[in-house]
Every structure is written in structure tokens, then in C-alpha cells.
């Protein structure tokens, strides 16, 4: 492009005017950032602990790869959620999208926990039924 070229009076019409007509977003205030920052810190700590817990299951006689995978997956999701929460505090302009990403990851961690609990409950019920059936068979 020629730098000495005279300005084109019609060029202004090409500017995207819509960018300034977006619905207003939200920038969290200092006290709100403090709450979110605290949540980010503890979520990070819990994520690291979750990974350590998974790694500890690999030590000893009852080592389980599935246990490791589940704990590491939950730990990574918590760390990702923590980083998104940290971005809410440290960046400007995209607070709500970062918060939504964090909440989405947190929701997935809770879903995994609920599914694991239901599976454990089913296993316990099956084990109890098996024991009862075994006892009934012995009596008869």
C-alpha cells in the first residue's frame, strides 16, 4: 500500500460498526475477583491432590490403572477450571466466558464423581445380594 496515497473518504464505511453494538458484558470488581481468586487457588490445590491420590493408588499391591486414569482426569479438569478462574481475575474483557469454562469443567468433575458413586453403590448392592444368595443356598 502506498503511504502517500490520499485517504479514501469511502473507506470508513468498511469499518465493522457491529463490534460496538454488542450487548454489554461484565467485568468483575475487585471484591468479586478476590472471591474468584480464592476459588481458583483451592481448586488448583484440590486438582493437584487428586492427581497425587491417583498416583498413590499405583503404589502397593492393590494398584489400579483405572483408578489412576479417573483421578488424573478429575485432577486435570480441576486444574483447567482453576486456570480459567485465574484468567477471570487476571484478564479483562472476557470474564464471563472464562467463568463459564471453569464452571463447565467443575460440572464435569462433579458428574464423574456422581457416576462413580452410583457404580460403587451398584457394586455394593450386587455384592450384598450375592452374599445373601450364598447364605440362603447354604441353609437350603
Amino acid at each position, binding site marked *: 500500500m502506498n503511504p502517500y496515497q490520499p485517504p479514501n473518504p469511502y473507506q470508513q464505511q468498511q469499518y465493522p460498526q457491529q463490534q460496538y453494538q*454488542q450487548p454489554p458484558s461484565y467485568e468483575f470488581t475487585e471484591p468479586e475477583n478476590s472471591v474468584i481468586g480464592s476459588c481458583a487457588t*483451592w481448586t488448583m490445590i484440590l486438582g493437584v491432590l487428586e492427581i497425587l491420590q491417583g498416583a498413590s493408588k499405583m503404589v502397593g499391591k492393590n494398584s489400579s490403572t483405572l483408578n489412576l486414569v479417573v483421578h488424573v482426569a478429575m485432577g486435570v479438569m480441576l486444574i483447567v477450571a482453576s486456570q480459567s478462574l485465574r484468567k477471570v481475575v487476571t484478564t479483562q474483557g472476557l470474564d*464471563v466466558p472464562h467463568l463459564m469454562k471453569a464452571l463447565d469443567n467443575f460440572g464435569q468433575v462433579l458428574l464423574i464423581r*456422581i457416576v462413580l458413586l452410583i457404580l460403587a453403590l451398584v457394586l455394593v448392592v450386587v455384592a450384598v445380594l450375592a452374599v445373601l444368595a450364598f447364605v440362603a443356598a447354604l441353609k437350603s
Partner: protein
Amino acid sequence: MQPQGWGPQPGYAPAAGGSYEFNQLENGVIGRLGGRARTWGVCSIVIGAIMLILGVVVMIAVGNDMGLAVGSVVAIAALQPMVSGGFYLAAGTAFNNVVNTQGNDIPHMMDAMRKLTNAVRIEGIVAIVTIVAGVVLGAVVFAASQG
């Protein structure tokens, strides 16, 4: 990367504070988390209650010092799921309030974040205490087995 439909276009830098109403897509994410947090909260409280009952039963049924020690450890350990479960339940309710009410989305969101932080904090502290206690106990057992 910003997911589509969340917040404004890049380059838009709004002023801090003020009022904000979450849109339908954002309410979907918040509502889903609210439901899961409430479910997990109820599950945690039930697990804690079962542990507490088991602890008391062991204390009464066994009757000796060992039974008292094991039962009281189980009963004390039951406090963590009960307390953090209470916070998860409260956080879930607050997240649902964000979705179901209008005009106070940000205060409800901050309330939910505080309760979520408390739940996570309790889990984290108990996990750290458990790890430290496990390491100390392991060291004591190892030292006793060597000596």
C-alpha cells in the same frame, strides 16, 4: 479460545461492576453445575451420615478401647463429607438461583462461588491432613518394624 455464544466479541472491554444478566447458554452451564452440585451435596451428606452411624455402631458394639478408637476415627472422618456436602448443596441452590431469578445474577453467583470455595477448601484441607497423617503413620510403622 472463547466458546461461541458466551460473552461479547473479542476487543470489547466493558467497565468493572454494574449489573449483568446471564444469557440462555450461560444459564444452561450454570444450571447444569447447580443440579450436579446439589446431587453431589446430597450424596456426600448421606455418605457422611452412614459413616457416622457406622462409627457409633462400632463404638457401641465392640465395646473395648480398640472399638472406641476405630469408631471415633470413623465418626470424625464422617464430618468432612457432611460439612462439604452441605456447602455443595448450598452452592448448587445458589447456582440455581442465578438461573431462576432476574436482576441479582452476580450477587447470587458470588454467593455460589463462596460456598463452592468453602466446599473445595474443606476437601483440600482434609486431603492434606490425611496425606500428612498417612506419611507420619507410615514412618512410625516402618520405624517400629525396623526397630
